[in-house]
């Protein structure tokens, strides 16, 4: 029996598989299919200070081995999240990872204060969502603003650890990673989606109404592995790796690159049980390969 427990920013997860923000809602729908307690943690849909309608449809396009999405942070607002969703998720034996997105430092501070008071286990700071014209992108692509957002959240989070979620849409991700770490991030998560675009050549219209969207799914796995590896070599804090994970081997790959835990997102759309399956496959991988504790995989790559 492999020891599947891992720690991420001081939070013990019963296994390293969590679900990625925005792909799992607040868990209600998937709870009809399986016991959410099977997951190491749940990164819930990104929340903002006020309720948001998001972008007009279509919000999704398929791509070779992936998808583009431009949901635009549709969510009921942080107060509804704290009042209704946190108590629901508390019923399960899994860690709740809030995902917050602000347009200003004051918003990040307020969101941090509210979700930590609501009793979440970890705060993921979305500084990288490429969809929202006024928000995300600016914080995630500049080291100073990434540090400032992390700092604003950290100062208001009390005892709740803070994990900054990095955008891959930058020239040097290690620069942003170091900035977030020095601003007090207890962990980093990566990668968010890669900005992309698809055009219907018959109508000459972008398929997504927002014109551009974020790329995710198997197509981005090698980018995620590379970035996790680079960031792991640049910082000391633990990493939550994600991007295109669809199998236990994919999860092992991200862990070997340096991740302490792994999130599954887009793969859920093809297989609603993907996260549970990835966990089982990872456990089998460990058993077959004589890995006594899954945490041994973290950073176990033997680079040339």
């Amino acid at each position, binding site marked *: 029996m492999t020891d599947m427990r891992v720690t991420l920013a001081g939070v013990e997860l019963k296994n390293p598989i969590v679900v990625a923000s925005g792909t799992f809602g607040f868990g*209600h729908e998937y709870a009809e299919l399986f016991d959410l307690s099977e997951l190491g943690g749940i990164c819930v849909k990104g929340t903002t200070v006020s309720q948001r309608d998001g972008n007009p449809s279509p919000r999704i396009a398929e791509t070779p081995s992936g*998808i583009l999405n431009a949901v635009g942070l549709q969510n009921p607002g942080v107060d509804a999240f704290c009042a209704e969703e946190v108590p629901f998720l508390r019923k399960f034996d899994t860690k709740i990872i809030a995902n917050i997105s602000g347009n200003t430092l004051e918003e990040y501070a307020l969101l941090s204060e509210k979700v930590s008071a609501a009793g979440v286990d970890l705060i993921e700071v979305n500084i990288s969502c490429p969809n929202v014209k006024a928000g995300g992108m600016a914080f995630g692509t500049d080291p100073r603003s990434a540090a400032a957002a992390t700092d604003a959240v950290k100062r208001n989070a009390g005892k709740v650890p803070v994990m900054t979620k990095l955008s891959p849409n930058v020239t040097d991700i290690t620069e942003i990673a170091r900035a977030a770490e020095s601003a007090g991030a207890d962990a980093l998560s990566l990668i968010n989606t890669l900005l992309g675009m698809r055009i219907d050549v018959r109508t000459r219209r972008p398929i997504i109404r927002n014109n551009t969207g974020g790329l995710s799914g198997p197509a981005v796995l090698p980018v995620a592995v590379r970035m996790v590896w680079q960031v792991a070599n640049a910082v000391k804090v633990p990493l939550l790796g994600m991007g295109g994970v669809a199998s236990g081997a994919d999860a092992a790959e991200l862990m070997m690159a340096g991740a302490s835990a792994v999130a599954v997102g887009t793969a859920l759309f093809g297989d609603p049980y993907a996260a549970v399956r990835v966990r089982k496959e990872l456990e089998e991988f460990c058993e077959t390969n004589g890995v006594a504790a899954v945490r041994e995989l973290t950073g176990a790559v033997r680079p040339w």
Partner: protein
Amino acid sequence: MNVYKCTLLSNTRLTESSHDLRVLAPEMKDARPGQFVHVKCEGFTLRRPISVCDFDGEILRLVVDRRGAGTDWLTSRAPMTVLDILGPLGRGFSADGNILVVGGGIGTPPLIYAAKSAASADAIVGFRTASAAMLLGDFSEVCGTVQIATDDGTLGAHGRVDTLLEKRLAEHKYDRVLACGPAPMLRACVRVCAGAGVPLEVSLEERMGCGVGACLVCAVKLKDGNGGTYMGRVCKDGPVFRAEEVCFDD
């Protein structure tokens, strides 16, 4: 709702581009008219949403039009292929009482199951041209009257279904109209039914991700009844909506 491995029993061509698939799916026992299933197509990240055309407790009938690579794969499956199907999904039609079903093109299949489930039903169906017409025999079996319109006049009335609908509603009483088809057809149905004061339910289409209500990519703007709007999910809150709930303006 769950994921089931279902054996394809038969695959028959209906028109130039559409196929009639019969799938052994006794597990779908709760499938209601207007609901849909999310079908895995090999080699694709996303499933493909397909309406329940009919269900008898054992055999699930899907009518699929070849539109792109995914439906191309699906319509070229040989019998005995095992399909990976997530369903039944969404909120279906109120298929009871005396109803009129109005369908356009590939929007017609779900209306078979709806008409069959109601106490009595009539149908108005529209197609591009005579060779694209499908399921006419099935509609005659489950409906009293079946009226047909084609855009080019090669079969039935020359023109659009809303012209037939307007006349029909002027002469006959129905508890409800159920409509499925392209957006312009649905908008016309909304106008005609509102004019005639007959309740209307419409089945909407939107590009989907999860299909179960979690990812919010299938958003549709809905009216909250107090002058405001909110975003609903076609996969979970629909695909069938009461016409007065839907903001058709954009």
